[in-house]
């Protein structure tokens, strides 16, 4: 089963690469969904978006059939207070990389339709202003901050 999933992930990744060859200037890297405690109603997805083109592009919508809805969010710490800001779009300037990472920008995935545990894959559909659409099979991973590894 795990092997089958890996093959499917490979095909989807290859599809993403083919789209890049066909003129798409957005490259997605290091996508993952943070495994959450059992029953948690919200999860977060992270990845980096590289715009290899000479024109700015915008992430305008994300769909994910495994969740009720998805929002693009930024976590901001201002005067010691953490708050989340829902973003309508996320701009990726030309020749730039925009990172979605813990403690910063992230996709907020509301209400999973089933338990999400490490080893599973989540299908994320990213839609950009330029018309580019990318489908990613994103692995669910247990988060490590890295300091104690």
């Amino acid at each position, binding site marked *: 089963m795990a092997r089958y999933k890996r093959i499917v992930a490979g095909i989807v990744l290859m599809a993403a690469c083919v789209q890049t060859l066909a003129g798409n200037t957005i490259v997605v890297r290091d996508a993952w969904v943070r495994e959450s405690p059992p029953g948690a109603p919200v999860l977060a997805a992270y990845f980096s978006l590289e715009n290899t083109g000479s024109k700015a592009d915008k992430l305008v919508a994300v769909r994910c059939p495994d969740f009720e809805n998805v929002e693009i969010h930024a976590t901001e710490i201002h005067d*010691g207070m953490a*708050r989340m800001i829902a973003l309508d779009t996320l701009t990726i300037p030309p020749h730039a990389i925009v990172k979605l990472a813990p403690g910063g920008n992230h996709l907020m995935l509301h209400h999973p339709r089933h338990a999400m545990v490490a080893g599973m894959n989540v299908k994320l559909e990213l839609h950009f202003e330029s018309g580019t659409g990318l489908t990613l099979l994103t692995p669910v991973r247990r988060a490590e901050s890295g300091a104690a590894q």
Partner: protein
Amino acid sequence: MMVTRKTLTSATLVAALGIILVLGVLAGRTFRGPARVTSNDGMTVLEPASPLPEFRLHDQNNQVFDRARLQGKWSYVFFGYTHCPDICPTTLVVLRDVQKLAGGQDQGVQYIFVSVDPERDKAATLNKYVSYFHPEFIGVTGGQDELMRLTRALGVYYERGKARNGDYEVQHSAAIFLIDPEARLRALFAGPHNAARLAQGLQRLKGS
């Protein structure tokens, strides 16, 4: 006449200085809290430590969690809520690493997640949430009045946002607080958090 006027002027001056002095002392009394010294590792130490008031909350097993539960151990305390997708799990993973760095054996330290969203975070929800990060982590919440007793003493602010799609966000302090074994606020760390710095901060305080 001139002498009298001069005397009066001097008397007024002395009186004015006196009033300023008295006001200054009063203001000093009113506002004089513990000195706060922030080092370049992001840790702010309170000198002297600031005693916490009595409060009565409950833990993830519905056991009373009050001031006495903070006595006899060092406590790392973080405020958040389980509907928080990013900063809360990120911070709890950091605290799990702090626990690992401490060798996982230090019985003199406890890790406490206080939910500022008691309407949604019941004991059972908190139990599943905190034990996912570490079986020994403690989840705490309670009525708003009792929560406020603790948060006010620590200078923690939180606020429920507007509902959207039936969900709401809770803005909350991002700091991690270090409470000493006499239930006094000893230090706090502003984010972003780093496990090594948090662990070293406690070692530094233990040695001081």
